[in-house]
Structure formats: structure tokens, C-alpha cells
């Protein structure tokens, strides 16, 4: 347990220090996220016929997270590829699972910083309100963050170590994330008031129509995929 903690901290501190000094990924992520929000904002003028601002806002948030998250995850192993750093990392007296957990944590932290910057921008530009349910919003965004990062980190290792083209990473990660995106978008729609609570809880939404159920589902999804990716990471990096 102590070894796990020390290994985790060493890799995490290294990754964060590299990012703070080189500033390779966070500025790109933020600008990409803002561009996505800007484009979606341009096509959703309030007052015009079509979907309302809460729907577009929820879409903007998840699309920005997914694609900016992919940038972060791609970098996290591309950096190790230079000068054969990954060999050194794999030779370190650590369980390979620890490397995965450290990289996952680093990606979650980077994506969280990104969310802190982009979420207010989205909420201001789409004029969104959560009616005092800030805590729920934070929980939903963090759970989405962990889900996106867990799969992205595993497959970025796979894709980078085989020097595959990066576009492969995006389809692999997005297709596995699809089930989580359904309750994730549902939760944001409820929070932003696009789906009134009495509709959300009605019988047409079968047995899991509430915000609480959506959060529970996301928690289960994260747990399943963090554990599965942690177990399978050794298989992916093995030479």
C-alpha cells in the first residue's frame, strides 16, 4: 500500500511538473474547448426556432470535454515515447497498474482544471442556471471526467506505444464511452431545466428516470471501467 502511494505520487508529481513547465497541452485544450463552445453558440441563437439553450449548452459541455480530454490523454503517453522514457517507467520497481492509476489521476486533474475554466464560459454564454443545485453539477461533471479519462488513458497507452495514427484513439474511446453519455446528457438536461423533474420521473422514462439514478449509473460505469482498465493495462504495455 505504501509502495503504491509512493509510486503514484512520484509519477503524478513528474507529470504535473512537466505540464506546468512546458505548458504543452492545457492551453490547446482550453482553446479547442472554447472554439467548440463558440461554434455551438453561433448556431443556437435564442429566440430562433429549434432546440433551446439548455440542450445546446449540455451538448457543448460534453463535446468540449470529450475532445479536449482526448488531447490530454494523447499527450500523456506521447511524452513518454520520446527518448524511450516508457521503458524506464516500465522497468521501475512498481506494479504496472500503479503507472495506469498515476496517469489516470494526472489526466483527471488536467481535465478538472479545464472544466473549471470552460464550465463558467459555457454557463455564461448559454445563459444556463442550475437553480442552486451546484453540488449535483460538480458531481456529474467529475464522474464524467473520470469515465472519459479512464478509457482514454488505457487506449492512449495502446495507441502511442504502437505508433498508430491518433484518429484511431478518438473512435475507440468514443464508442466505449457511448453508454455513459446517455445518462450524462440526461443529468445535465435535468440540471439545466430542459427536462422538468416531473417529466424526468414519469413512467415513459422506465425505471431510472431521476437525476439520482443518472448519477448512480455514472458511478457504476466509472467503477466498472476504472477497475477493468487497471487490470488490463499490463496486457496493453507488455512488450
Amino acid at each position, binding site marked *: 500500500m505504501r509502495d503504491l502511494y509512493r509510486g503514484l505520487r512520484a509519477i503524478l508529481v513528474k507529470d504535473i511538473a512537466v505540464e506546468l513547465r512546458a505548458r504543452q497541452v492545457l492551453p490547446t485544450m482550453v482553446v479547442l474547448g472554447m472554439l467548440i463552445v463558440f461554434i455551438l453558440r453561433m448556431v443556437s441563437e435564442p429566440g430562433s426556432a429549434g432546440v433551446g439553450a439548455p440542450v445546446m449548452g449540455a451538448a457543448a459541455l460534453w463535446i468540449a470535454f470529450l475532445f479536449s480530454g482526448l488531447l490530454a490523454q494523447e499527450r500523456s503517453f506521447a511524452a513518454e515515447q520520446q527518448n524511450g522514457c516508457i521503458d524506464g517507467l516500465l522497468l521501475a520497481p512498481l506494479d504496472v497498474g500503479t503507472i495506469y492509476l498515476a496517469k489516470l489521476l494526472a489526466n483527471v486533474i488536467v481535465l478538472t482544471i479545464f472544466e473549471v475554466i470552460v464550465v463558467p464560459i459555457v454557463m455564461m454564454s448559454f445563459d444556463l442556471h442550475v437553480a442552486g443545485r451546484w453540488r449535483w453539477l460538480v458531481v456529474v461533471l467529475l464522474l464524467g471526467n473520470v469515465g472519459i479519462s479512464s478509457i482514454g488513458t488505457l487506449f492512449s497507452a495502446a495507441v502511442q506505444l504502437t*505508433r*498508430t495514427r491518433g484518429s484511431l484513439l478518438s473512435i475507440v474511446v468514443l464508442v466505449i464511452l*457511448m453508454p455513459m453519455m446517455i445518462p450524462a446528457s*440526461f443529468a445535465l438536461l435535468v440540471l439545466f431545466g430542459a427536462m422538468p423533474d416531473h417529466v424526468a420521473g414519469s413512467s415513459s422514462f422506465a425505471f431510472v428516470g431521476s437525476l439520482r439514478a443518472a448519477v448512480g449509473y455514472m458511478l457504476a460505469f466509472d467503477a466498472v471501467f476504472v477497475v477493468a482498465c487497471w487490470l488490463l493495462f499490463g496486457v496493453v504495455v507488455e512488450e
Partner: protein
Amino acid sequence: MRRLLFTLAFVLLIVSTWIGLTEGQIVPVARNILYVHVPNSVCALLCFVVLLVASIGYLTTGRQTWDQAAAASAEVGFVFATILNATGMLFSRAEWNVWWTPSPRLVTSAILWFLYAVYLILRISLPGSRHRKARLCAVFGILAFLDVPLVFVSARFIPDIHRPSFRLDSAWQTAALMLGMAGTVLLAGALIWLRTSLLRSSLRLEEELLR
């Protein structure tokens, strides 16, 4: 043996079609697509189970046969998933007057199709040694299988239009569906078997040429 399997599958499918066209016809006529749609959806899911078993088999034993079986079941499953979605869209157009709409089972079948499609793309576009490629595909196969039950549950967050709006009311109709089911499952098994042995032959040929 394989030829026998194919023959049996085709006989069953022809008998099922015959009954469906005569005694077991469902009114209105568009609903008869059920005889193709339901067996195909079952087979698309069954192929995923084969994919999972083969992927786990490869990761634990490292034998090429498992990898070839995984590739074969994904290819066959992709075909079934395509037919499942195509017939589903035809039925949806006839019954509800839309080609596609987000509804739990429609979303689930679409995601199933996407999972197969990405698996096949991954198979053809990964560089590197054969073992590494096979290992990564097996990892994706396992994670993709974990997705299937999760999709079933998460799809419940969408309102449902896909309710069985009719029942099979004669023994002939049940017979046609059951025969179609048996025939399609046998066909899927035979196709996976055929593809596996074809992949094995092509690998052997490659090794001969390299020697």
C-alpha cells in the same frame, strides 16, 4: 461436417420463410420482417459472446486460433448487426412512420453496430507485431463486451416507442419464428467456423511465403 451445417441452416431458413409466406403470415404485411429481424438480433448478441470468450481465451493462452475465432465472430457479428439495424429501420418506417428515433432498443442496436465497426477498424489498422495487435484487439473486445449490458441499462434514460405491439397468435407463426431462429443461429455458427479456418489458412500461407 461444415457443409452439413450450412445445408441444415438453409433448409431451416427456407422452411421458415415458406411458413411465413403461407400459413404463418402476419397482417399487416410489413410485420413479417419480424421473422428476419428477431433471429438476427439474437445472433448479433451471440456473436459478441463468442468474441468475448475468444478474446479471454487469447489473453490467457496466447494461441492464434483464439485470435482468429475472435476476428471471425466480429466479422460475422458485424453482418448480423447491419441486417438487424437495416430491417429494424424498415420496420420502424412502416410501423411508426420514422426511419430512426432515439428509443432504448434502437440506440442499443446502433451502439452494437458501432462497437463491431470500431473493432474491425482496429483490427485492420493497428501496426506492429501480430501478437501485440491480437492482444490489443482482445482488450478492446473485452471492454466492448462490458459495454453491452451497460448500454441496455443506460438506454432506459430514453423514452421507449419499441413495445411489442402484437403477439404471435398461431402455432404456425411461432413455428416459423423458431425455425428461423434455429436456422440463423446455425448459419452464424457455420460462418464463424468457415471464417476461422480461412483466416488460419491465410496465416499459414503468409508464413510459407516468408520462409
